């Protein structure tokens, strides 16, 4: 118990929140790196996954990429970057490692989301004379949205959690508070840092769940109500089933 009160004291000390090594600066670094990685990964993986899903091809590719992603330790990837010439490129190595890590869940969920749209609905839309593009925009994308959001959520949490590891190779971010505490045998600081990191990960998860609900309500009204409801129900089901595939993977 003593450690926890000490950790609380550490957190309550204003001086620990300011300056180069302070919580504020580390939090900004953490969010910057995670945000950049998530945006880049989405820009690559979402269009590709949606397109492959629309074509109905590349299922093995999506699944294999997802499985391979789980086997690669991010710590090792980061370390490889840090002993290469890239080590002088600031946050680039971290962002690249995180992008590589975020692509599998985004790609797989986007692909599966489009693929799992009821074939009968797709056929009906085709029968109504919709072109490939129309079918994608009006039918497949809205129905795949819940699955897409599940992927985005799992990728975001994964990235925020994994960005912590940047500290293990000497880079910034909230993990740095933990490793700095380790180096000075300051257990209260280690625990305080861990609490901060865990709280941020949970906060991001919560914020994304809320945004997802809100988005679902808005999109539900814009699109066909029945279709979107059926879609979100299906998405919730598949989302549940797929949850074990999530990986905070900070390996």
């Amino acid at each position, binding site marked *: 118990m003593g450690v926890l009160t000490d950790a609380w004291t550490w957190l309550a000390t204003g001086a620990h929140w300011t300056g180069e090594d302070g919580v504020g600066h580390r939090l900004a670094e953490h969010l910057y790196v995670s945000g950049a990685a998530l945006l880049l990964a989405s820009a690559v993986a979402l269009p590709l996954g949606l397109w492959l899903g629309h074509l109905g091809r590349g299922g093995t590719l999506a699944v294999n990429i997802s499985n391979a992603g789980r*086997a690669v330790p991010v710590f*090792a990837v980061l*370390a490889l970057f*840090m002993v290469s010439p890239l080590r002088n490129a600031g946050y680039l190595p971290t962002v690249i490692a995180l992008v590589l890590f975020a692509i599998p869940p985004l790609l797989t969920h986007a692909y599966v989301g489009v693929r799992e749209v009821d074939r009968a609905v797709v056929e009906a839309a085709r029968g109504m004379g919709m072109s490939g593009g129309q079918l994608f925009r009006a039918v497949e994308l809205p129905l795949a949205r819940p699955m897409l959001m599940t992927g985005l959520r799992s990728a975001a949490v994964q990235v925020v*959690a994994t960005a912590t590891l940047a500290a293990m190779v000497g880079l910034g971010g909230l993990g740095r508070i933990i490793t700095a505490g380790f180096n000075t045998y300051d257990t209260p600081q*280690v625990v305080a840092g861990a*609490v901060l990191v865990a709280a941020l990960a949970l906060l991001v998860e919560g914020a994304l769940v809320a945004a997802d609900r809100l988005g679902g309500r808005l999109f539900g009204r814009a699109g066909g109500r029945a279709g979107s409801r059926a879609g979100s129900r299906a998405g919730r089901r598949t989302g549940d089933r797929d949850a*074990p595939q999530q990986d*905070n993977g*900070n390996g």
Partner: protein
Amino acid sequence: MAEANCLVTNDWICGEYLRTRAQELTDATLQHIGITAVSVLLGIVVAFPLALLVRARPRLAGPVLALTTLLYTIPSLAMFSLLLPLFGLSSALVVTGLVLYALTILVRGVLAGLAAVPAETREAARGMGYGPGRLLWEVELPLALPALMAGIRMATVSTIALTTVGSLVGRGGLGNLIEDALPTFFKAQVLTAAVLCVLLAVAADLLLLGLQRLLTPWNRPPRPARRRTAAVRPGEGG
């Protein structure tokens, strides 16, 4: 001479490194395998009764699944640090953290496997006079094996990757080698340890896949039959 130089020139791939540090590499790999194996086995031991409990009392399903998912959200560096006051710098700390991560995947795997058992099969076994224990052990468990093994494979592969983070407290197997090599930018050691990690994950996955095939012979395609028709056909044609 040229080979000995690769340690001096700090090449990515260095035969001399593999030769001189073989013992160190073996030790680290064995520690990695040990920590992973203990974590996954303990995970199964904890997850199995937990899944059975959830199945028997569906009301507990929500809280149990939410709790394991919550644990999964906590970053590994934070998880190991939070357990530090409880365990100190020990392997138990790393193993506990890894077990907590494996739980999410394993509990869901066991539940999905048991849910996939057809209700008619269960009814038939009950009608034949199978008690709950015998039903679980002789009917449900074998039928649940594919989904169960999928969960175990997934948990094993991600545990192997996560073990490297245990180097934070000096119990990370191959992760230790990576951490040791970082300050001196020792490329050969970082690359070798990283490659060994991935190879370990692939090997474990294939091993478990083989085990699954062995345990579920009824899921295998009927190979002898195919061979027989193939052998017959030329005779027919000729």
